[in-house]
């Protein structure tokens, strides 16, 4: 691995993926992928539809264990069998399609799986709905958003509002690594820029971010490095400064760049 020689110069490796594979029937969705993510780094993961991006990050997020391969967090090999395992390991994930529960309201969605509780009569645990509501309002206002009806099921929200709700879930956790699978998909220009800012802020705080997007403009605005997948394989891993949009497109579509990889 070429980056090994540079390890000392670079920040610590937060995530190491070693020879990860995942098949569905005969289809190799992720095929022997190895990858590293450094502390505070923004890694853009790109590739055509069906390239295997979501499958790869699902394995890292504990949502869908791989068939083979290893995942190391801060140098320690981890068995991530459930989303909770990943969460405990400091990995937060915004899944493609957002993963909201339509019938729950905004605070319930934001806090699902990480509820705040109080004690009823000092002994019986119950939800602290007041506090969750207040925290939700805080989180959303951090995005410059105020939703008029926090108590209604989120099914009634617009695509962008839903996306903001899903993203604010990430801000609750104490994380080392955040994965965002197409976070800008349904957002307007303004909200999209806020997400870009958010990603940068996180990276400045030392949180690593893997962001999947089809928008190459966003990729070049954000990313330190760009990983390209095609047909389940990692076909390129390039420094954003040292490459061009043309090269990345070639990698995505042809699986090779001009330099002859």
């Amino acid at each position: 691995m070429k980056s090994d020689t540079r390890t000392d110069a670079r920040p610590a490796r937060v995530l190491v993926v070693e020879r990860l594979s995942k098949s569905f029937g005969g289809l190799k969705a992720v095929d022997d992928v190895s990858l590293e993510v450094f502390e505070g780094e923004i890694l853009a993961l790109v590739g055509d539809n069906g390239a295997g991006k979501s499958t790869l990050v699902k394995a890292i997020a504990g949502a869908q264990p791989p068939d083979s391969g290893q995942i190391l967090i801060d140098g320690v090999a981890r068995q991530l069998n459930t989303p909770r395992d990943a969460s405990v390991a400091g990995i937060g994930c915004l899944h493609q399609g957002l993963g909201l529960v339509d019938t729950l309201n905004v605070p319930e969605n934001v806090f699902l799986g990480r509820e705040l509780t109080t004690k009823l009569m000092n002994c019986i645990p119950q939800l602290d709905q007041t506090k969750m509501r207040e925290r939700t309002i805080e989180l959303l206002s951090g995005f410059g958003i105020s939703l008029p009806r926090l108590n209604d099921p989120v099914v009634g929200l617009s695509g962008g509002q839903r996306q903001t709700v899903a993203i604010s879930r990430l801000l609750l956790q104490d994380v080392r690594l955040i994965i965002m699978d197409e976070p800008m998909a349904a957002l307007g220009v303004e909200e999209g820029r806020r997400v870009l800012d958010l990603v940068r802020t996180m990276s400045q705080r030392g949180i690593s971010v893997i962001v999947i997007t089809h928008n190459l403009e966003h990729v070049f605005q954000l990313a330190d490095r760009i990983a390209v997948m095609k047909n389940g394989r990692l076909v390129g891993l390039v420094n954003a400064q040292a490459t061009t949009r043309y090269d990345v497109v070639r990698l995505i579509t042809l699986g090779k760049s001009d330099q002859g990889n």
Partner: protein
Amino acid sequence: MNATVESERTIGHADRRWLFQGIGLTAVIIVLAILFIAINPRFGTLANLINILTQASFIIVIAVGMTFVITSAGIDLSVGSAVAFITVVAFGLIKGGLNPFLGVVFMFALGAFIGCLIGGFVAYVKIPPFIATLGFMAGLRGLALVHSAGEMHFGLPVSLTYIGQGDIAGIPVPVIISFAAAAFGAWLFNRTRFGLYVKAIGGNREAARLAGVPVNRIEVMVYVLMGMFTALGGLIMMTRIDSTQATIGTAMEIHVISAVIIGGTSLFGGRGTIYGTVMGALLLSMMNNALIIAGVDFFWQLVVMGCIVLIAVAISNLREQRIPLLAHFLRRAPKGAAANNPADGPSH
């Protein structure tokens, strides 16, 4: 933070639309009650009203459990058979000399055990709840018949019949139990992590799983809870009439599920209301009572109940605008007409 703001927030947090539905149903019940009293004053006597509550008590208890099941996007068709199986076995044991208190504990344990099996099949073997509980419906009825086909058990100790026949300050014990069970259910449903997870699983199981909800474990717990509410309902039934038999509770699932659906809980899962369920059960009990007083026979009562269920679901679909054409007419008057006027202004 001062107390007024606090309470305002709490009230504000209740899902208003469903609250409204609960109030709507309550209004229907009150209007119908007034109508029935006008038709036949015998309906309105205190004794009869208490009778309605008592009749509804075990349905309320089991329907509270069913609200959790249906909200989790499940269904339990086996409650009637479970009541039969649990009561005949427990009755036999108690008559055979088992301490009545232990007998009651045994009923709850058996209910929980049955629920655990059902939940296991649903969550881990991935048998659809409809099919799994259809199996238990047949199987448990069969076991009840094996245990005591054609036998009529009766003669419980007084300590137990008090549960079904006693009263506190004129209020029958079954009524008190049913309201306590409903209050507990409402708390569990609305205020606890478990209740939230039940709604999350029913609303979007995959999203719940990705959020870290232990979906399988919660699903098993839902059926265990159902089993224990079923046992409590069975306890009330058997102590109220001081007897049981293998055919008790036949077709009970229809009444219970009807109460839940009339109450406004979504059959698609994800949301429900305990208050609505209680109101649904009361509405059914009241209708049956009125029909009995009017001398209408049992078969017609079933027909009426079927109609109520259909009407209730139609109304709730309308409100949720699942039927676009009708909803179009029911929607609030569009503001378009007024909003257009200013735009027209300059052109004059």
